[in-house]
């Protein structure tokens, strides 16, 4: 049999419908898009807004915050009134009414007590409560909070560390002022960070009695973080040497978690490793990394502690 050009043409003609059918099916296949957006972080922000604006530790009526309660809440540790395992948050509440106009220091005592939570008011520029003199415009009240002068009704609850991802939403709220309410904005920033992931894995391992692993790249580590450990009391923090890293703490009471030497693990692993995994093991008896099966808590065991082990991938 010889090379037959007609046979080739006929072959292609017969193949043509099949090819077009494949193309048509491909068109249908790629035209169909299922777009699923879980928006879990955004959903958390809305849920948190509902929780916070209903919490009688913070509000007088729904969505109307009480200055005294907010000042008290600023002094307590973060995440006490609401918490989500996967995400941390920072909450800023600020009045939209601007500075409080005054003519003398004495008129600012109420402002200073409400905004800065001052129990002892020391009037004047050298004290902690002052009517700031302006050359142009009205004089306004200011008070010292954490060593800095503040001239507006605003409060901040929670931490804001370096994050892997974050989202922010603003909500219209009020601030109780006498028998009325000032218009204010509540800004909630939710974030996903190295700290939220490792602390959440710890909590899940403790409560579900199953091991949980967290993968991360070295560039997702907060700068200077060398250790993850309990900061005494109710919180766990990332430490740089012996000092906590600014804003890198989470509320995690009642869980005995072993210290994780991040720097030691990094130095002990391969110098080229950029991807790492931290596994949280629920333990019934003390053990070192990696724990033996006999030390890991089962369904019917009580979890005595959580061990964190870090290894290069």
């Amino acid at each position, binding site marked *: 049999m010889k090379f037959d050009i007609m046979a080739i043409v006929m072959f292609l003609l017969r193949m043509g419908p099949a090819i077009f059918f494949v193309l048509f099916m491909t068109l249908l296949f790629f035209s169909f898009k299922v777009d699923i957006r879980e928006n879990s972080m955004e959903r958390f922000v809305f849920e948190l807004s509902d929780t916070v604006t209903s919490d009688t530790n913070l509000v007088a009526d*729904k969505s109307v915050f009480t200055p005294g309660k907010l000042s008290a809440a600023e002094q307590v540790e973060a995440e006490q009134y609401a918490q989500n395992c996967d995400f941390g948050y920072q909450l800023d509440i600020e009045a939209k009414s601007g500075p409080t106009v005054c003519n003398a220091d004495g008129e600012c005592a109420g402002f200073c007590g409400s905004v800065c939570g001052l129990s002892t008011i020391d009037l004047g520029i050298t004290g902690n409560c002052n009517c700031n003199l302006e050359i142009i415009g009205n004089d306004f009240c200011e008070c010292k909070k954490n060593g800095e002068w503040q001239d507006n009704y605003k409060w901040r609850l929670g931490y804001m560390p370096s994050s892997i991802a974050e989202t922010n939403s603003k909500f219209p709220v009020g601030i109780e002022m006498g028998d009325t309410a000032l218009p204010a904005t509540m800004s909630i920033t939710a974030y996903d960070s190295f700290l939220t992931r490792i602390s959440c894995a710890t909590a899940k391992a403790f409560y579900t009695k199953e091991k949980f692993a967290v993968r991360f790249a070295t560039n997702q580590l907060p700068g200077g973080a060398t250790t993850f450990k309990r900061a005494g009391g109710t919180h766990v923090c990332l430490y740089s040497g012996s000092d906590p890293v600014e804003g890198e703490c989470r509320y995690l009471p009642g869980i005995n978690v072993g210290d994780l030497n991040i720097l030691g693990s990094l130095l002990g692993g391969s110098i080229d490793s950029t991807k790492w995994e931290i596994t949280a093991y629920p333990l019934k008896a003390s053990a070192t990394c990696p724990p033996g099966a006999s030390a890991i808590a089962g369904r019917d065991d009580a979890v005595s502690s959580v061990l964190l082990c870090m290894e290069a991938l």
Partner: protein
Amino acid sequence: MKGMNVSDTFWTLILAVFISVMIILGIFIWLQIHLPFFSTADPVSYSIEFVHVVNKPFMVTEVLAHVRFDDRSVLEQSIETAVTSPENASTTSLPRYLSDYLNAYDLREYQVSIKNGNNALMSFGSTKAKCGDNLDNPEGWCVSRFSFPSGVTSSCGTGRAQINPTQLTCDVTQRCCKEDRTASTGNTIVSCGPSGQGVCSEGERPFYSWAYEKIWGTTWKYTCEENRVDLGNPPECKAANGGNTRACCAPQTAENEVDAGLAVKSVVPLQYKQTTATLEVTAR
């Protein structure tokens, strides 16, 4: 082809066809992903979004329930307005107070009404993006003269007329458009929407939409001009004005936005003896 037998030819052909199909498929998939008219006009697309919470009007209402103007709370003034009238209840200044209060929130839009049944005793809204000579209730919306990607827009659209107010004006890049079904734009006015609240209008579409329609034979999705509520491209508009006014556009009122799912209304019942009224807040 000397030395090539049938088997060689056959498998060479199969390989050539396979490679050709792969190349065509590759080009096709690339077009699907990158070209705008593929990605926007996909015929079967299904989107699931788990969160669409609109809680602003409820939070605003909760705050207003705590707010006090002059000698009475907002709720008290609202009840007295509903039972008597704004004049008898001495609440004629309530809209101005509440507008000043709500403007502090930087909401994109809001509308507050006190209603007794379908009778609106008091109603006011945000003046952001509004224009006109009636300062209490501006009649027009500011519309950009230029929009991307459609280019320079020539008019306010069918069913709207350009006005030149002297009180509340727009900036130089915008024109003031007032909803007016009697305005002459060269197109026949055709009502559209579930309750006929919309008008079939030219809408906005990118400059390459005509090429898309020529090639693919299907119609481009027309969107409404700025500051109008988009009610889609219903059949009654596809047939109107030779197919040039396919966008169904309704005035940007609170009711139309709620109907279109763009805004949410919070309703507070106000009850006093035999009178039942409502305080309604729409915000977004």
